[in-house]
């Protein structure tokens, strides 16, 4: 299980970094989302991976899962969700004001703008 989790965090982070470095805003937003997924799984695994262990005190249990990372992940999910919503709206606003979806606003107007204008 450790290998699987480590691989999934690594692959998601790599994809996220690749997408964040793209020049259009949409891949950047998807990349940020992937990075936040990766960090959520990473945070979760920092409480050590255990199967079937209770988080709340149980006299019969022989071990406990750490509940704190789960609370951290919950907070991180909520924040990442709000941030994603915000950055999508901002990307749309930039697309509207700069005339294209390049992160620097370069590259002229998109073809569909001209069609829509014509």
């Amino acid at each position, binding site marked *: 299980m450790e290998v699987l989790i480590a691989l999934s965090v690594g692959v998601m982070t790599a994809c996220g970094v690749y997408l964040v470095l793209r020049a259009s805003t949409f891949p*950047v937003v998807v990349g940020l989302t992937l990075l936040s997924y990766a960090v959520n799984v990473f945070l979760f695994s920092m409480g050590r991976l255990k199967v079937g262990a209770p988080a709340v005190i149980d006299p019969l249990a022989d071990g406990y899962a750490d509940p704190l990372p789960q609370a951290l992940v919950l907070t991180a999910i909520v924040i990442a969700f709000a941030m994603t919503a915000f950055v999508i709206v901002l990307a749309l606003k930039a697309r509207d*004001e*700069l005339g294209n979806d390049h992160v620097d606003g370069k590259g002229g107007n998109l073809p569909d703008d001209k069609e829509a204008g014509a």
Partner: protein
Amino acid sequence: MMHWVIVPVLLPLIGGLLQLVARRFGLPAQRVLGLALTGGLMAVAIQMLILAQAGDTLVYNLGNWPAPFGIVLVLDRLAAMMVLLTSMLALAALGYSSVMRVDEQGSHFHVLFQLQLFGLNGAFLTGDVFNLFVFFEVLLLASYGLLLHGSGAERTRAGLHYVVINLIGSTLFLFAVGALYGAVGTLNIADMAQKVAAAPAERSGLIAAAGLLLLAVFALKAAMFPLYLWLPQAYANTSAPVAAFFAIMTKVGVYAIIRVHGTVFGEQAGVLAWLHMPWVLAGGLVTLVLAALGVLAARNLREQVAYLVLASVATLLVAVGLNRAEALAAGLYYLLHSTLLAGAFFLLADLIRRSRGVASDRFGVVARMHGGRWLGIGFFFAAVALAGLPPMSGFIGKIMILDAALAHPWRWIVLASTLVASLLILVALVRSGSFLFYRPQEMALVEDSQLGEPPRKSALWIIGSMLVTAPLLVLFAGGVMEFTNETAKQMQQIPEYIEAVLGNPLSGEEQRMP
């Protein structure tokens, strides 16, 4: 008495909610409420400074959970100083935006402003790393809204870069905090300092990696090389009061380095002690030189002031990186000076831009302006102070940092880059000042068609009241330095900090007693 510590966090939060309601009564009501709230916050901050002045580290257990399990707020001299500085800067920025009607350009300016204060004060007061992350997110989300306040394609472009880079920074913050938690099993800063000191040798590599990743996040907030490229465009393109208020935002990054790294990787940490110091010093020196070149190369006044903010934060990083109590004390003195002066300079640049009309604040277009005399005096005053010339406070701050640097093995590099950077900044400011204020006088006969609006008296008063802190900091340098010395010493007494946080009895029992 005990509850004072949480008031600076709660007051802006409730204030933000009230502003949402006050929106129905129009902007004048919001302005009055905002100024009243920020003034109240300043009064609270002064009260907290008096509390912290006694030298104790005051700890507030949220929800009355004892320290390593619950989240704590910690008030010491440094936190009290930062909260007071923030409220002073906020009051000036809010006053300016009310006078110049900047808040009309978009909605929810006052709400976001209060929430920004909420995030800042929380970040200064918290004693928990994950809570620090949450407050960082609060202040960042509010700052995104404030940065984009008003409109314009340039502002949106710079805002997009700022938002994306800070979101990546937040992700890295979570990675670093997660790795630290995985390695030592705690999030409380005091507890973490203890656990890192006691960590087995095979863990130290992981802890070092997580600590340096966390340093990268704080360096991003503080705009340290090579993570400073977002700052000049973002600050130069936003509205003036927001840029002035953001002069404190980079200082939050420096504060977090002093607080988290200074405590966790202090001298008790064994092999990991002072792990971050060479990085902070080297990054600060490179940033300082590049910022000075940026000041020289800037194409308009606002961009120049943005690079001046960068130079001031780089000087601060150098002071922290020297790793001596005297250097830190001098750095904190410099922090007070540079934050207020940089804020004033942003507001002044806005007035100059407005009074030059279509020429805006570009260098390269000669234009006459209204009220050039007062603006020129203000510019001269601010430039002398920020370039670090005597008799202003910047000179005292810098000379004390250099004095402390003499004992450091890198002293020649520190001296050379600080002095060369100061010279470059001085040359650039002399050039832009004479361009803006002397050359138009030669062309006084040219038609007045392109003049902008004259500067408002009330705006000049606000800027004047900020500028006057420079000579005040010189006049009261003895008292202020005594305070920053005590603060720097307190930051080095890590066992006392740990003792105060972890040995704190539950406050509820005392509260129930009449």
